[in-house]
C-alpha cells in the first residue's frame, strides 16, 4: 500500500477496511488464541478472499504477537491465501469419495465454464477455482464449497446455475 499514489476512493476503502479489521479483532476480545477465527473473518470481508500482509501486521500489533507468527499461520492453513483471489472461491472437493463420483470431471467442467484453469482467477475477479481436501459432504458427492455454503450432486446444469447465481450477486 503506497500512500503517495492513492486516490480518495482508495483511501476511503482502506480506512473502512482498517476499522472493520479492528472491530473483528475487538469482537474476539483481542484474544491471541482466536487468531485463526480473526484471520478467517478478515479474509471473508476482504472482497479478495485473501489476507493482505498489511492487515496481518495490524493483527500482529493488536494481539501483541510477532508478524512472523501470523504469517506462518497464514501459510500453514489451507483455507488462507495471502494472494488476492476472486470474490468467491470455488473449492471443488478432490478427495477419494468425491473422485469416485466424478469430481475430476466436475473440475474440468468448472474450468471450461469459467474459462480458467484450476488455481486461477477469472478476469472479472469474481471467481477463483481451487481443489480442496474432503469437506465432509461425501453424502452429496461430487461436491464443492463456496464460502460457507455446500453444493452437491454437481453436474453441468448445476454448475451453470451456481455461476449464474454468484455472478448475479456480484452485479447487484
Amino acid at each position: 500500500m503506497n500512500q503517495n499514489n492513492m486516490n480518495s476512493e482508495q483511501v476511503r476503502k482502506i480506512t473502512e477496511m482498517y476499522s472493520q479489521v479492528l472491530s473483528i479483532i475487538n469482537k474476539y476480545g483481542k484474544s491471541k488464541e482466536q487468531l485463526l477465527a480473526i484471520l478467517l473473518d478478515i479474509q471473508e470481508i476482504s472482497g479478495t478472499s485473501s489476507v493482505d500482509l498489511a492487515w496481518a501486521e495490524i493483527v500482529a500489533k493488536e494481539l501483541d504477537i510477532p508478524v512472523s507468527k501470523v504469517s506462518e499461520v497464514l501459510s500453514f492453513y489451507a483455507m488462507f491465501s495471502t494472494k488476492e483471489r476472486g470474490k468467491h472461491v470455488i473449492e471443488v472437493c478432490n478427495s477419494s469419495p468425491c473422485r469416485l463420483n466424478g469430481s475430476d470431471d466436475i473440475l474440468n467442467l468448472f474450468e471450461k465454464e469459467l474459462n480458467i484453469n484450476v488455481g486461477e482467477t477469472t478476469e472479472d475477479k469474481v471467481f477463483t477455482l481451487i481443489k480442496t481436501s474432503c469437506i465432509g459432504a461425501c453424502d452429496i458427492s461430487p461436491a464443492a464449497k463456496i464460502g460457507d455454503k455446500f453444493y452437491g450432486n454437481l453436474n453441468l446444469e448445476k454448475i451453470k446455475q451456481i455461476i449464474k447465481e454468484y455472478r448475479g450477486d456480484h452485479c447487484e
Partner: protein
Amino acid sequence: MNKTANYLSANFDVIKPDSVDEYVKQGGYNSLKKAISMTPEAVISEVKKAKLLGRGGAGYPAGSKWEHLLEVEEEPKYIVCNGDEGEPGTFKDKILLEKNPLGVIEGMTIAGYVFKAKAGYIYIRGEYRAIQKEIFEKALEDARAKGYLGKNICGTGFDYDIHIMTGAGAYVCGENSALLNSIEGKSGRPRIKPPHLAEVGLFLMPTLVNNVESFANIPLILELGGENYLNIGTNESGGTKLVCLSGHIKNKGVYEVPFGVTLREIIYDEEMGGGLADNRKLKFFHMGGQSGPIGVENQLDTPYCYRELRNNGLSVGSGAIVVADDSISIIDYLIQVTEFFIHESCGKCTPCREGNTRILEILKRFANKEASPEDMDNLNNLINLLTEASFCGLGRAATIALKSGLKLFKNEFEAGLKK
C-alpha cells in the same frame, strides 16, 4: 439384534437442535444431573464399564484416558473436544454438531464436572463454519441462558463454560497434540510425546481430548448405565457407531449401527447402503478414512467392531466406509490417497514429507506400466520407512491403504511392471 440403532441419532430431525427446552423434554440434561449427584470416580467407572472406545479413529479406551487424567493433580484441567473431522469419507461429527449439538455439549459438561474444569474448548473445522454459526453457537448460548453452562450450573456451585475454536483447513490438526497447538493460535504441527496430554496439554496444563462422537456418547452411558450401554454392542466394543457410507454406494449417508452388525449388512441392507450404485460389482471398500486399510468381498462377513475388524486386517477408524466398484483400478485409487497425504503432510518430518512424494512417483510408473521390479522393492521400503520413522500418526498411517492394496491386488501391480 437390530441392524440400525437410534441412540445418538434419537434427536436427529426430532427436536430443534439448538433448543435446550426441547432437548430437556426428550430427557436431555438428566445425565448431567445424575453425574453431579455422583463422585467423579463413579462417573468414570460407568465410562469404563461401557467400554467406550475413542470414536475419533484411534479407538483408545475413553475410560482409561479419563482415569489417567483424574490421577493428575495439577490444575486447572481443560476439556477439549476434537471436531476437526478431516478424514475423507467421514461426515458423522458434522451430523452430530448439526443435529445433536446439545448431546455433545452435555458430554463435555459432564467431563468438566468430573475434572473440576473451568473451561472446555470445542475445535470445529473451518469447513463447518456455517453449522458452527447457525446451530452450534446458538445451542451454546441457549445452554448458558438456561443455566447449564456458566456460573453455578444447576445450582451446585459448579462453574464451567465452553468456547468454540475454529480450524482453517489442516487435516493434521485432527491429531490431538496438533489440535492443541492450533487452539493456542499456532500452526497445527504435532508435539512430541511423551509428555502425555493428560499431563502437559492445552496451555501446558492437564487436558482431556476426546472426539465429538465420544462426548456425545457420555450422556447416553450415564442414562443407560455402563453395563446396559455395553450390551448394545459387542463384549469389547460398547454402544453404537455412526458409520459414513460414501463412494459408489446407492444410499450415501450416516447410519447409526450397534457394534456387531456385519459389513455386508451395512453395505447391502436396504435401510443402510442398499448395495452398490447401478448394481455394479464391489471391488473394494476403504475403511476408517484415508489412513485406514482396504478390504474386499471375502471380508464382508466380518462383524463391525474393533476386535473383529482388527483381526481381519481392517479397522473402525473414523467410521468411514468408502465403497468402490470395479470401474476403478486400485493403483489409480491409491494415487488419489497418496495425493491427499502429500497435500496434508505438515512437512515437519522427512519420512512423511518426502516419502509420500516418492510413493506417488512410483505409483504413477505402475499406472503407466513403466514400473521396474526395483520400484516394487522401494515401495515396500517406503511403507516401512513411513510406518516406523514418521513423527506423528499422519505419516505412520499414510501407507496403511497402500500396504493392504499391494497385498490384495498384487496382480494389478504386476501388470504395471514394464514388459
